[in-house]
C-alpha cells in the first residue's frame, strides 16, 4: 500500500489512497473533515469577509470596484506599495543572510556557548519590534542617540551623526535583526534533524568545512531557507510599529502606515483598507509560485531511519572568532536596546537622566501591583497564547502532513488556505474576524474563544511552513514500514512521524507562541474589558506617552517569556536524549508524542 509518498504527486497518490478510505472511511473522513472545517472557520470565513469588504464602498456600502481602481490611479497609494516591497525584500535578505549561517554555527559546529546564542536569539524574538525600535531610537536618534553622543565625544561636537535611525536604512536594519529569529529557528531545526552521511561523504572526498556547508548542508535545508525567506519577506511587509516609529519622521509611507491612516480617517475607510491589502496577497502568491519552481520535485529527505545528526563539525582556530560573530546579532537586537530600555524603566522620570535620586523600581511596582488591569492581562496573555499556539501547531502540522504526503485530492489547496492569514495585516484581519463572528449562528463576540481563534489563525502560516519544512526532510520509509506492519494512517502519524519531527515541533510551538504573546493588531477589535491582554496595556501606555511604564512592562514581558523558554529546556533535553537512543540502533521511535501542551 504505497499510500504515503513524496515522489508520486497529484492524482496518482489520490488514486492509491482510495482503498484506505474504503478500509477506514469514518476515521479518515472525520479527520479530514475536521481539518477542512477548522480551516474554513479560522481562515476562509474571516478572509472571505475581508475580500467581500474590499468590494464595497465605505460611504454608501454599495458594491464597487472603486477601491481597487483608486489604488492604481493614485501615486499616493502606489508609493507605499513600492516602499513596502523594498523594506520586505531587504528584511528577508538580512534575515536569511544572518539567520542561516548563525543556525549552521549553532546546530552543526562546536561553537562555544551554543545554547546561550540560541536563547539570546529567542530573546530577540520575544521583543515586539516597536519596543526594539524604541530602544534603538534611544541609541541612534541623530541628535540625542547615545551612540551618536559617544561618537561626537570622540570625533568632536561638530561632527554629524554617525547613525540616523530615522531612515529607510534604519528601518531595514531593525526589521531585519528582529526577523532573523524566524530564519534562525526554522533553519536550525531542519539542521538539528539532519543526517550526517552526505556531509561525511563530502569530507571523505576532501571537501573543507566551508565548502561542505555551502554545497551540502545548506542546500539540503533549502526548503527551510526558502520558507523562512518568504516568512521574513511577509514580516517586512506587515510590520507596523517599526515603520510607524522610524519612517513617519522621514515622510516615507509604507502599506501598514497607510492602512493606519485609513482607520484614522473620519469616517474610517475600512473597506478601502481591505482592498489595499490585496496587492500584498498577490506578491506573496508569486513568491510561493517561485518556491514551487525552485524546489520542484527535488528531494530533501535526510531522515530515513538510519544514522542521525549528533556529531559536530570542529571549527578549530575559527571557534572563537565565529563566536564573536555569532554574538553580533544578540548585541544589536538584545543587549544594546535592552540596556537602553532597562535604564529608562529604572528611572522615576527618564528626562532627568541617570542619577541615584532618580533611580527607582517604581514602574515595575506599578506594572505588577499598582495597576488593577495588569494581573488579568498577564494571565489572559499567557492563557490565550498557550491555547492558541497549541491549537495552531496541531492544526499546522496536520495540514503540513496532509500537503507533504498529498493525502487527499486538492491537498495543496489546504496549504494555500493555511498561508493566507499572515499576509493580511492584523488590523484588517481583525475586522474580518469581527464580521464573521458577531452574527448567528456563530456569535462568539466577546468570548476568549474568538481571541484564541484569531491568534491561532494569524500564526497558522508559521506553524504550517515550519511543519512542512521539517516534513520535507523526513523520508517516508519508516512510515511505509509502519503501514505495512498494519498501522493505520493516524497511528503512523502519531507514533512515527510526530516523534521524528521531535524537537522541531517544540521549536515550532515557540515560533508561534512568542509572536502571539506580543501580537496586538489582530486583537484590536476583538478584545473586551474582560479579555484584555498585556500588549493592549503596553500600547495604551505608549499611546499615553508613559515611556518608563512601556519599558518596564516590556522588560517584564521579556522576563516572563524567557522563564517559559527556560522551563521548556528540560523538554528539549528529553527529545535530545531520545535522539541519542535512536542513534544507538533502535529502529522505531517511542510512541509518545512530544507536543507541548
Amino acid at each position, binding site marked *: 500500500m504505497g499510500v504515503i509518498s513524496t515522489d508520486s504527486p497529484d492524482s496518482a497518490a489520490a488514486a492509491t489512497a482510495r482503498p484506505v478510505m474504503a478500509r477506514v472511511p469514518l476515521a479518515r473522513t472525520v479527520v479530514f473533515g475536521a481539518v477542512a472545517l477548522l480551516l474554513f472557520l479560522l481562515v476562509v470565513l474571516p478572509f472571505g469577509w475581508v475580500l467581500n469588504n474590499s468590494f464595497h464602498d465605505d460611504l454608501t456600502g454599495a458594491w464597487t470596484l472603486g477601491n481597487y481602481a483608486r489604488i492604481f490611479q493614485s501615486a499616493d497609494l502606489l508609493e507605499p506599495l513600492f516602499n513596502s516591497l523594498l523594506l520586505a525584500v531587504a528584511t528577508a535578505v538580512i534575515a536569511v543572510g544572518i539567520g542561516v549561517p548563525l543556525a549552521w554555527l549553532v546546530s552543526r559546529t562546536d561553537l562555544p556557548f551554543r545554547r546561550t546564542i540560541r536563547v539570546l536569539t529567542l530573546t530577540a524574538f520575544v521583543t515586539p519590534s516597536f519596543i526594539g525600535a524604541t530602544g534603538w*531610537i534611544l541609541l541612534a536618534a541623530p541628535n540625542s542617540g547615545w551612540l551618536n553622543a559617544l561618537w561626537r565625544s570622540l570625533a568632536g561636537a561638530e561632527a554629524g551623526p554617525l547613525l540616523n535611525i530615522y531612515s529607510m536604512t534604519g528601518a531595514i536594519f531593525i526589521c531585519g535583526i528582529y526577523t532573523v529569529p524566524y530564519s534562525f529557528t526554522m533553519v536550525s531545526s531542519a539542521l538539528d534533524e539532519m543526517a550526517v552521511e552526505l556531509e561525511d561523504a563530502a569530507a571523505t572526498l576532501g571537501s573543507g568545512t566551508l565548502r561542505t556547508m555551502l554545497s551540502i548542508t545548506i542546500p539540503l535545508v533549502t526548503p527551510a531557507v526558502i520558507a523562512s525567506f518568504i516568512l521574513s519577506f511577509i514580516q517586512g511587509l506587515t510590520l507596523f510599529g517599526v515603520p510607524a516609529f522610524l519612517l513617519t519622521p522621514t515622510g516615507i509611507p509604507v502599506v501598514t502606515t497607510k492602512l493606519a491612516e485609513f482607520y484614522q480617517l473620519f469616517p*474610517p475607510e475600512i473597506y478601502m483598507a481591505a482592498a489595499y491589502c490585496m496587492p500584498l496577497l498577490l506578491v506573496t502568491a508569486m513568491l510561493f509560485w517561485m518556491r514551487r519552481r525552485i524546489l520542484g520535485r527535488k528531494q530533501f529527505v535526510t531522515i530515513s531511519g538510519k544514522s542521525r545528526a549528533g556529531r559536530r563539525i570542529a571549527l578549530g582556530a575559527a571557534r572563537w572568532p565565529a563566536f564573536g560573530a555569532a554574538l553580533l546579532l544578540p548585541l544589536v537586537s538584545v543587549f544594546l536596546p535592552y540596556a537602553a530600555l532597562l535604564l529608562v524603566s529604572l528611572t522615576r522620570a527618564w528626562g532627568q537622566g541617570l542619577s541615584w535620586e532618580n533611580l527607582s523600581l517604581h514602574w515595575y511596582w506599578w506594572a505588577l501591583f499598582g*495597576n488593577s488591569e495588569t494581573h488579568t492581562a498577564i494571565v489572559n496573555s499567557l492563557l490565550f497564547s498557550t491555547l492558541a499556539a497549541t491549537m495552531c501547531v496541531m492544526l499546522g502540522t496536520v495540514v503540513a502532513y496532509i500537503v507533504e504526503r498529498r493525502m487527499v485530492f486538492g491537498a495543496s489547496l489546504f496549504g494555500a488556505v493555511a498561508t493566507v492569514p499572515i499576509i493580511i495585516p492584523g488590523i484588517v484581519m481583525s475586522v474580518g474576524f469581527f464580521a464573521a463572528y458577531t452574527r448567528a449562528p456563530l456569535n462568539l463576540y466577546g468570548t476568549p474563544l474568538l481571541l484564541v481563534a484569531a491568534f491561532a489563525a494569524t500564526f497558522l502560516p508559521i506553524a504550517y511552513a515550519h511543519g512542512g519544512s521539517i516534513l520535507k526532510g523526513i523520508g517516508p520509509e519508516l512510515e511505509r514500514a509502519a503501514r505495512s506492519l498494519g498501522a493505520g494512517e493516524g497511528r503512523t502519524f502519531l507514533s512515527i512521524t510526530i516523534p521524528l519531527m521531535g524537537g522541531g515541533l517544540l521549536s515550532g510551538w515557540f515560533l508561534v507562541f512568542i509572536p502571539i504573546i506580543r501580537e496586538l493588531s489582530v486583537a484590536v*477589535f476583538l478584545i473586551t*474589558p474582560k479579555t484584555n491582554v498585556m500588549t493592549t496595556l503596553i500600547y495604551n501606555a505608549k499611546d499615553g*506617552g508613559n*515611556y518608563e511604564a512601556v519599558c518596564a512592562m516590556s522588560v517584564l514581558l521579556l522576563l516572563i517569556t524567557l522563564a517559559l523558554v527556560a522551563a521548556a529546556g528540560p523538554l528539549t533535553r528529553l527529545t535530545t536524549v531520545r535522539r541519542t537512543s535512536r542513534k544507538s540502533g533502535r529502529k522505531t521511535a517511542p510512541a509518545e508524542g512530544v507536543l507541548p501542551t
Partner: protein
Amino acid sequence: MMEFSRRRLLQTGGLVGTALVTGGLAGTAFSRIASAADDPLYAAAKKEGALTLYWGSYEQQTMEAIRDAFKAKYPGIEVNLLRQASQTVYTRLRMELQSGVHECDSLGTTNMLHYTELKKIGALAPFEPVDGVHIPDAFRTLDPDKMFHVGAISLTSINFAPGKVPSPPQSWQALLEDQWQGKITTGSPAFSGDVANWVVAIRRKYGDDFLRAFGKQKPKVGQSNVDTVTDILAGERVVGSGAPFSYTLTQKAAGNPIDVVAPSDDAILNLGVTGILAKAPHPNAARLFTNFLYSTEVSMILQKNYWPTLRKDVPWAEGRALDQLKWYRNTGDDLGPEVAEGIAKWKELVR
C-alpha cells in the same frame, strides 16, 4: 415617622457633605453614601448591575481613576472599561451597530464628528445630566437635543526644554523664526486627531502660508503629539508644536525637564465628547455615569492629573483656569472635509 426623619437626616447629611466637597474638603464616606443612596437613578442603575464604557478620552491612568471613583461611590454596579484610542473605539462601535451588537452604554471619544454621525443614524439617546449646570458656559450645550455632552477638554500648545531654551517661542507665529529651524518636533495630522485639529485651526488663522513656512523649519514629524514630549526629554529636539498641554504638565510634575507655553495667538482647544447609546443595555447606569462626570470627585481627579476640569467651581492644577487662557476652538458643521483638506495640505507642504 421614623422613615421620614431618617430620610431628612440623610438629606441633611448629604447637603452638608456636598457643601464640604465644594469647599474643597473631599467628601466623607458618610456623605457619599447618603447622597448616593437616595438617588432614584442609582437605584435603577443598581438594578441593571453593570456598565460598559467605551472610552478614548483621557489616558489609561486617569480613566481608571474615574472608573474606580464611580465604583466607590456607587457600589453594586460592575464597570467594564474598554480603553482604546478614540478612533479605534469608534470604529469598533460602528461595526457593532452594523452587526446589531449592543454592548456599549457610554461612549467617550475626542472627535465630535463621531457624535454628529451617530445622532444622524439615531444611535444616541438624549439625557440631561443634573450636574451639567456646573460645566463651563462655553461648552454647556453642545447639542440642542442633549444627545451628547462634553467629556474632556484638551488643549494643544507649545512645549519646550527649559534647560536648553531660555526664551521659548510664545506664539505659533514665533515658531517660524529662523532660530527654531531643525529644532521643532510635532505629531502627524494623519495619525493624531489633536494635530489634525491644530492644522485646521492654524489654516483658519494664517492660511497655507503658515504650513509652507513651518515645513521649511524642517520639523521632526512623529505620529502622536505625545511624541513631542519624548523627543524633548530625549534631547532629539527642543521645542514641540501642536503639543499636548495636560500631558506635558504631567511629565513636568513627574520631575522631567519640560514645560509648556500657552501661545499668545491661542491655545487650540479640542473637546472630548460623550454620549449614551440609544440601545444601551444599561441605560440608567450610563446616565448615572454621565452625571458623575460633572461631579466634584471627577473634576478633582482631573485636576490631580493635570487635565482641565469639567466644572467651573473646580480650578485646574496649579491654579490655572480656562478664562486665564487665550484659546480657540474649531467649530462648524463641515469639519470633516476641512480635516481631510488640512491633512492633504500638510502632506504637500510640510512632510
